[in-house]
């Protein structure tokens, strides 16, 4: 059994570090200083260049020695993130001056991070809490590297702020604008989205039951419902603003229209989902329409209904934000996005996007959790 267990990520990281050393200067000021040593000694990575390269190479080498996986992941984690941190903090003040070795070193660090996640994914821990922790840590490292690369590339290459601000700037903007963001969330999510979502989904559900109960509705309404659900409903937003005014009520109306049809169509499909045998069974008990609906057909329809609720959770957010483009009081996420774009405050736009993404994920996650609790019996939830 060999003492080494090479991984392509570590090998490639070492190769990239060596190329970086061969290429020399990490940034334009450093290149200038090399050409003319007397001119200036102020350039990035004055003292840390060797440290970063050494760290990356040493971490890569240690990771290839046959040591316990946990230790390997730890070494890689520290190495990759320390290099990334040195790299990003060192470029401060010299944004846009990075040369190829900067990006090579970034790639090497990223490869070490990749290897770290790969090692962690391969762990098969016994204890339940370790498994839970791993389930959180692995996507966290993954997500962190998206932000690290975004930050390092935007700052190293000096991408114009208006095109893509670095995440740190967005984070600072979020931290500094909490009251404004809070007011926008209150206006858009707690008023328009929640109200529209509850009323739209509820109305779709009740209409589906009515259509199931009343044949003429089933035959007349459902084909029209299917047609309407294919329309770009967001187009009615300006009309809703004219009907219901500038405040959140018109946005809630758009959300109601957007969420109504997915719920209607899914519930109708779900009500047809119970098996013939089960329905015959209820018939042998001389069970009436309502007992059969409550005891058999609605539970069987639950996976469909939750599907609609999940679809609607994202549709509602989109609907409310876009509807605000067509006229609002001076508050709301859609209003903020449309006005701050006009004022070139792109970091504020991104801040709103981040908040909307967070709110949308939480919304979706809550619905999915409730779904797991209610449809625990479904093969897709109980797993087999």
């Amino acid at each position: 059994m060999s003492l080494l267990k090479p991984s392509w990520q570590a090998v490639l990281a070492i190769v990239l570090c060596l190329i970086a050393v061969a290429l020399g200067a990490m940034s334009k000021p450093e290149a200038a200083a090399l050409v003319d040593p007397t001119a200036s000694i102020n350039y990035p990575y004055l003292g840390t260049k060797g440290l970063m390269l050494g760290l990356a190479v040493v971490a890569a080498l240690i990771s290839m020695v046959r040591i316990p996986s946990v230790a390997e992941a730890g070494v890689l984690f520290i190495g990759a993130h320390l290099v990334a941190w040195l790299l990003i903090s060192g470029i401060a003040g010299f944004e846009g001056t990075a040369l190829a070795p900067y990006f090579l070193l970034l790639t090497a660090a990223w490869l070490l991070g990749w290897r770290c996640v790969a090692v962690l994914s391969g762990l098969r821990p016994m204890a339940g809490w370790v498994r839970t922790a791993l389930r959180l840590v692995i996507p966290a490292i993954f997500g962190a590297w998206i932000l690290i690369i975004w930050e390092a590339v935007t700052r190293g290459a000096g991408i114009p702020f208006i095109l893509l601000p670095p995440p740190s700037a967005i984070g600072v903007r979020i931290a500094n604008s909490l009251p404004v963001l809070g007011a926008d969330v209150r206006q858009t999510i707690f008023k328009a989205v929640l109200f529209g979502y509850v009323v739209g989904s509820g109305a779709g559900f009740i209409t589906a039951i009515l259509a199931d109960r009343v044949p003429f509705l089933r035959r007349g309404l459902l084909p029209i419902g299917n047609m309407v659900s294919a329309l770009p409903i967001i187009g009615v937003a300006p009309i809703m603003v004219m009907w219901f005014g500038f405040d959140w009520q018109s946005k809630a109306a758009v959300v109601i229209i957007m969420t109504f049809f997915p719920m209607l169509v899914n519930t109708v499909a779900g009500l047809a989902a119970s098996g013939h045998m089960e329905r015959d069974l209820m018939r042998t008990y001389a069970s009436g329409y309502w007992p059969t609906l409550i005891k058999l057909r609605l539970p069987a329809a639950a996976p469909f209904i939750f599907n609609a609720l999940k679809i609607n959770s994202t549709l509602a957010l989109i609907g409310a934000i876009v509807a605000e483009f067509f006229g609002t009081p001076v508050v709301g996420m859609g209003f903020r996005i449309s006005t701050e774009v006009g004022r070139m405050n792109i970091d504020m736009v991104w801040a709103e996007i981040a908040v909307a993404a967070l709110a949308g994920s939480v919304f979706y996650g809550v619905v999915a959790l409730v779904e797991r609790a209610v449809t625990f019996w479904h093969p897709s939830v109980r797993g087999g």
Partner: protein
Amino acid sequence: MTGMSPAVVAASKLGLTFQTNDGPVQALSNVDLTIGKGEFVSFIGPSGCGKTTLLRVIADLEKPTSGTISVNGMTAEQAREKRAYGYVFQAAALFPWRTIERNVALPLEIMGLSRAEQAERIKRTLELVNLSGFEKKYPWQLSGGMQQRASIARALAFDADLLLMDEPFGALDEIVRDHLNEQLLQLWARTNKTICFVTHSIPEAVYLSTRIVVMSPRPGRVSDIIESTLPRERPLDIRETPEFLAIAARVRDGLRAGHSYDD
């Protein structure tokens, strides 16, 4: 024996024609049958002979297009509305979102029984099918045989005198099936219910029944009715006795006479 006891099921000149896209299909034709109280009647025949359809007509899940049917002296529909029978399907058809206990309680809930009464009946019927201790399990946590036993318990829970069983053990392996057949006979002896049992297994039909109705297809009709001479007490090894084999041979002949193996 049939003549003595009051008829639980009486069919006369029963016919059922399904209208399909390929034209009318005659599922039942001219079926005359009387089933007395406490009988165990098996319906046997190849697929498409209408044995399941006949059971569904008795259960008022299908309406006959000719002839008459009465169940407990009422029309089939009245009997269904009075919950005159328990029906066991080919699959267990348990609701996966309910525990075994709540599945058995399903008909009792629909009938509006009190919680205490429900609990008492659940306990009693689960004991009857040897499922005590599995009350809180979900159907998907049990084996196929246990699921089918739970579905029998559900059919027994509301104490109907008539039990209609549509190939209840058809999907189970032979070992489980033998075991359940034995238990079913014990259950029948204890409860004195009338049982109509659809099967396509000759040994199963002979082992269980007091009377075997042999059916033949196209159109579905009764081609022979065989009275069993076996005693009511039947250990599993009765299936090796000459008497048993003789009845099985008669059933086989009856199936052949119905030209059911022609195609």
